[in-house]
């Protein structure tokens, strides 16, 4: 009787297995983004953490290993740090609710399918794509106390001229207003996309059941817009904590230290006061705070999908 030998199939190499091949292909797709994050985000963060343990300046180099002294100094000896965080917090508390509310209202308006709405949406978005430095400089001229257009308009209505950017009371709210004008368009676009994703049948059903427009807005729109709103609130908060350009361009942290937000103070420490080690410590502290803030926000705003 003949014995038939059946050749054993060769075992597959790991990259030949289907599941692994799919994963490998996926990894190659995300490789550019990974490289970007590694090179421009994670490595600098690790570098920054290392610098924060040294007495280090760009011109003087690494002078002395100081351990956590920079952190102790920031938390216990430097009143400008507390001032910086308080000013930043004030900025965030003023800007975020205003921006979210305004964006929601504008999105509700701009999401309607009417003639010319494309143009309206574009007009709302134009400030977003304009250079912030240019925006800041132009607004600075508009808000000039003596020759600015804003004060000329106020005077026309019989109101007194205001020192928008040179008054310790008015400077921060003025910066908030400028940043709001610049950034609200980004939030509007996100919310418009979110609104477009809400099925019309919910509104139809609500209308049939006798709901008025306010009830439809609060009982349908807001809950179903939760994901987009969460994204807008979290990103607006994160970006607001990191505000820098209008401060740098318009007030340099002044008058007094009325607008000296923490990121501007970090910049001053690094590049003006030649204390890169201390600036690195401040930026690590800021990162930790932002991490906590966004974690808390995500936790509070998390809810099941509809």
């Amino acid at each position, binding site marked *: 009787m003949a014995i038939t030998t059946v050749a054993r199939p060769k075992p597959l190499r790991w990259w030949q297995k289907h599941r692994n*091949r799919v994963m*490998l*292909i996926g990894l*190659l*797709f*995300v*490789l*550019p983004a*990974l*490289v*970007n994050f590694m*090179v421009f985000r994670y490595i600098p963060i690790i570098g920054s953490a290392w610098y924060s343990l040294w007495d280090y*300046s*760009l*011109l*003087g*180099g690494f*002078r002395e290993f100081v351990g956590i002294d920079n952190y102790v100094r920031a938390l216990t000896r430097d009143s400008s740090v507390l001032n910086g965080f308080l000013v930043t917090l004030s900025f965030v508390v003023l800007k975020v609710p205003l921006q979210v509310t305004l964006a929601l209202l504008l999105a509700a308006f701009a999401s309607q399918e009417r003639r010319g709405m494309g143009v309206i949406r574009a007009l709302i978005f134009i400030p977003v794509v304009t250079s912030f430095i240019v925006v800041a400089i132009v607004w600075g001229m508009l808000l*000039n*106390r*003596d*020759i600015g257009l804003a*004060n000329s308009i106020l*005077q026309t209505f019989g109101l*007194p*001229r205001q*020192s928008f*950017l*040179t*008054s*310790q009371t008015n400077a921060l709210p003025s910066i908030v207003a400028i940043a709001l004008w610049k950034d609200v368009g980004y939030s509007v676009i996100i919310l418009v996309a979110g609104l477009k994703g809400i099925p019309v049948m919910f509104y139809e059903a609500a209308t049939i059941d006798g709901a008025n427009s306010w009830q439809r807005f609060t009982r349908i729109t807001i809950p179903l817009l939760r994901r987009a709103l969460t994204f807008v609130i979290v990103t607006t908060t994160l970006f607001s904590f990191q505000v820098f350009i209008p401060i740098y361009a318009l*007030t*340099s*942290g*002044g*008058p*007094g*230290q009325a607008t000296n937000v923490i990121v501007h103070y970090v910049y*001053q420490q690094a*590049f*003006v*006061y*030649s*204390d890169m080690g201390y600036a690195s410590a401040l930026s690590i502290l800021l990162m930790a705070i932002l991490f906590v803030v966004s974690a808390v926000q995500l936790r509070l705003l998390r809810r099941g999908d509809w």
Partner: protein
Amino acid sequence: MTRLWTFAGIGAVIGTIMLAACGSAPAAPTQAPAAPNPAATKPPAPAAKTPVTLRFLKIADELEAKAFTEMLAAFQKIDGGKWSYVNIEFDAKPFAELFPAIQKSVATGQVTDLIQSDGPNVKNFAYNKLLRDVTDNYTPAEMAQWSPQSIVEGTYKGRFYGPPQNQSCQALWYNQEMVDAAGLKLDTKGLTYGPNGTGLPIWQKLTVDKNGDGTPEVYGFQNSGPNWSDYLNRIIARTNGKPGDPTYEGVSPDGLKFKGFFDTDKANEAFQFDQDLFTKYKVRSTQPPANAMLAGFSAMAVSQDLLLGTLKNQFPNFKIGAMEPPYWVTPMCHTGSWHYGISSSTKSFDEALAFVKYASSDEGAAFIWKYKNQLPANVKFTATLQEYKSYPRNITVDNFTKYGKPRIETPAYTEYSALFNEFYGALVSGGNVTDLTKQYAQRMEDVAAKYAR
């Protein structure tokens, strides 16, 4: 699946390119004018030397670029063409970016041969060992070609680091038509600060509020704005002292102590009056535009005579007058402008030194003067210039000679200057003067403390 692999491969290539780009050499310099090649008149070249290109990190200035191009061509011909193998690569940055560019250059270990440093920053660069000590490379006769103020500005702890390129001083410039319209007759002697000084009534007369809304259309007085630099705005306090006293000197001899110098009673008196000019008498604007006086926004302004270049180019019909700048007790003008520095990282010291010596000589200064028209640091050369022998520019050079005082001499000048800016903004917005000077004197000392090491 094949298509997937293709796209994945493209992604891998992009990632590799990005990694490669991150490790690439620094970007090429932003300006590298070719040296002229006057072949017809070129002297016989000495024995062939390996070409040397010096990298010169400096301010971006169109007029300076022309001056240096000609200067380099002349330098290559001196001493029988001894330096004909030397070329210069100008890495020019806008003013606000120059200091960060220097910091970046040092931090990344980039080789630089020459650095253009603002006078008050020479001490900082010397402290950080950015500049070569050239004390032993200059004879007393060579040092004597510059003004004493220039030597002070280029010196740190008794050693010389920075030969000067230019100098500066101020005058009080005014709109002749506005002065005539106010019925004023002015001579060239400086006005005095203070509630009882000669300046205030004149500035009040020159301040015009046609519609009576409390905001003048024309302010009587302005320092060339709009930023609040110590170059112009510290003078008022220093002039309320006498040479040698803390108020006048403004900082301790080692450049590290500010308490008892910045916040003296005399300084507070002066700063209080300065604040009153904005808030009480309203003869100064809290937000002046650039070129306030030339634009018709103020009747008088303290400024360098560089103002005349702007006038000629942009306001040719402006009728200008000049007088000595105002003061409290002791006249003063703040001095200081650009200096040449030889970088510690240079590998071509002899060539760099030769170029710097030439550039800072009377011959080199002539090229800068030809295009920039700014007060030279070279004493003999300045004495030959007709422009400084007659009104109004003679006021600048006379003031410089009699009352020129370097700005606050401290290795922490960048930090001090930023804090002064912040202080002055708070002063202008109405803060308590005594509290502010005390607070900022402390902060200035805190940031200067590290230079005691």
